[in-house]
C-alpha cells in the first residue's frame, strides 16, 4: 500500500483529479477533496460503501456535472469527449432493437445505419451478441441486456470506459461470467477502465489497481496494486494471494467506513 499517495500518481496518467469536491444544491457534500490519477491501460476499481460518492465521481469524470471545487485534467490531451459509460441498470431504449441501441452513440454523431453498421456489428460480436441484433431488450435476459449496454459503450471506441456498478443487479453466476468477459476484452483491446463497485471480491478479481473511498463525503483513503498476472481465471479466485488481497481491501474498507 502506498500510504503517501493513495491516489496512485503514475507518470503516464490519462486523467488527473485534484482536490475535486462536489456539493449538491440541497447541501449534500458528496465528494470532498478527491485526488485520483487514472493511468493509461489501467483497470482501476473504485471501492467504497454505498452513498460515498462513487457515482458522483464517475459522473464528474464523464462531464455530466460540474465539480464545486478542484480540477480535472487530461494531461496527455483528449477530453471528456471519447468516454463510454455503463450504468448500473442496462439503460436501454425499450422501443429500439439491440442493433439500434448499440447504434445510438454513432447515430448521435451523425453516422447513419449504413455507415455505422460495421462498427455496430463489431461491438455486438465483442460481447457475443451477434445473433441478437434484431431482438428487443425485453426479449433478453438481464445479463444479455448488460452486454448490450457494454457494446453500446464500446461502439465509439472510447479511450476511457467508466462502469458504475454494472454487474450489481445480475445473479452471481452471470456476474462471474461477465467479469471474465470484461477481463478478456480489456486485455485484448488495451482500454482504460474505471470500474466502480462495492464488492471487495469483484474489485480484487478485476483490478490492476484498487482505490478505496471513505464514507461520505468521499475521498480516496487507500490504494494498492493487485500485482497478479492476467489472464485471471477461476483458479485465481481460490488462490492464497486472492484471499490476501481481499483481506487487505476489506480492512481498508472497514477503516474507511469506521
Amino acid at each position: 500500500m502506498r500510504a503517501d499517495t493513495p491516489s496512485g500518481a503514475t507518470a503516464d496518467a490519462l486523467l488527473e483529479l485534484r482536490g475535486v469536491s462536489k456539493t449538491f444544491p440541497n447541501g449534500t457534500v458528496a465528494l470532498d477533496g478527491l485526488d485520483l490519477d487514472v493511468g493509461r491501460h489501467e483497470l482501476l476499481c473504485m471501492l467504497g460503501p454505498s452513498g460515498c460518492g462513487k457515482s458522483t465521481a464517475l459522473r464528474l469524470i464523464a462531464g455530466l456535472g460540474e465539480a464545486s471545487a478542484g480540477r480535472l485534467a487530461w494531461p496527455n490531451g483528449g477530453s471528456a469527449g471519447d468516454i463510454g459509460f455503463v450504468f448500473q441498470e442496462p439503460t436501454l431504449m425499450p422501443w429500439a432493437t439491440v442493433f439500434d441501441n448499440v447504434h445510438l452513440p454513432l447515430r448521435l454523431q451523425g453516422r447513419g445505419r449504413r455507415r455505422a453498421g460495421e462498427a455496430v456489428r463489431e461491438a455486438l460480436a465483442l460481447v457475443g451478441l451477434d445473433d441478437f441484433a434484431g431482438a428487443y431488450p425485453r426479449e433478453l435476459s438481464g445479463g444479455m441486456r448488460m452486454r448490450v449496454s457494454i457494446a453500446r459503450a464500446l461502439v465509439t471506441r472510447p479511450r476511457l470506459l467508466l462502469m458504475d456498478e454494472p454487474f450489481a443487479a445480475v445473479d452471481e453466476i452471470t456476474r462471474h461470467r461477465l467479469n471474465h468477459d470484461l477481463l478478456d476484452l480489456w486485455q485484448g483491446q488495451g482500454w482504460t477502465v474505471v470500474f466502480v463497485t462495492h464488492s471487495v471480491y469483484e474489485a480484487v478479481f478485476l483490478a490492476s489497481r484498487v482505490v478505496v473511498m471513505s464514507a461520505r463525503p468521499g475521498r480516496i483513503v487507500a490504494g494498492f496494486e493487485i500485482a497478479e498476472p492476467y489472464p485471471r481465471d477461476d483458479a485465481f479466485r481460490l488462490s492464497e494471494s486472492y484471499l490476501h488481497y481481499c483481506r487487505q481491501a476489506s480492512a481498508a474498507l472497514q477503516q474507511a467506513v469506521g
Partner: protein
Amino acid sequence: MAAGDRPSRLPRRLERVLRWAMPLGLVLVVLGLWELGVRWHDTPHYILPGPVLVARTLVADWHTLYPSLLVTLRVTFSALAVAVVGGVGLAVLFTLSRWIELSLFPFAVILQVTPIIAIAPLILIYVENTHLALLICAWIVAFFPILSNTTLGLNSADHNLVDLFRLYKASRWQMLRFLRLPSAMPYFLGGLRIAGGLALIGAIVAEFAAGTAGTGSGLAYRILEASYRLNIPRMFAALFLISMAGILIFLALTLLSHLLLRKWHESAVKRDG
C-alpha cells in the same frame, strides 16, 4: 404437469371465440328481452320503441341519417386531428421552454374545467361559421388529454438515458427525436384514446347547443328534430349511430395503439401463460 394445475383453463381457441361471443350473446339477450317486453305490454312506440322498430327506422331513414352521421364524424375527426397537432406541438413547446409552460398551462386548464355545454353558446355567437364553431367546441374537449398526457410522457424519459444522450452531446432536437418522443408514445396514445371519445361528445354537445341553427345538421340535430316531432324510433336510431361511432373510434384507436406498441411496451406485449 400436475393434473390439478389449471383446472379451469380453456383451450386457447375456444377462449378467443368466447371473448367475442359472450358479450355479443349478452347484448342479443338484452335486446330480445326488450323486444319481448315492448310487445307483451303493447308499449306505444312514441314512448318506447322495440329494437326491431328502431332497426327498421334506421334502414328507412338511412338517407337522412347517413349524411348526418358523416357531418358529425367530419367534425369529430377534424377536431381530433387539430387536437393531436396542437396538443403534441404545445407539449413539445412546453418541454423546450419552462416559461411557455408556466404561462400557457393555466389557459389549457381553464378550457378543460369549464363545461363545454356552458361555453358552446358563446362560441356559436362569436364564430359566424357554424361548422367552424362546432369544430372549436369538439377541439376544446379533445385537446386537453392529449396535451397533458404528452407533456407527462415527454418528461418521463429515463433520466439515465437522458444522461447518456448528454454524454454523447446530443442536440435538443436529437434528444426530442430519439428519446423524448418515443418515451412519450404510450402516454400520447393513452391520451388519444380518451380524446377520440371526447371529440365525439364535444361535437354532439355543440350541435345540441347550436340547435336548429345547425345548418350542417349532424346526428344531434336529427335527435332534436325527431324529438320535436315525437319521432322516438328515429331518436333511438340516431342514438344508436352515435354509440356505434363512439365504439368504432375507440376500437380503432385501441388497435392503432396496440400496433405501435406491441413490440416493446408492457401494455401491449403478449404474455405466455
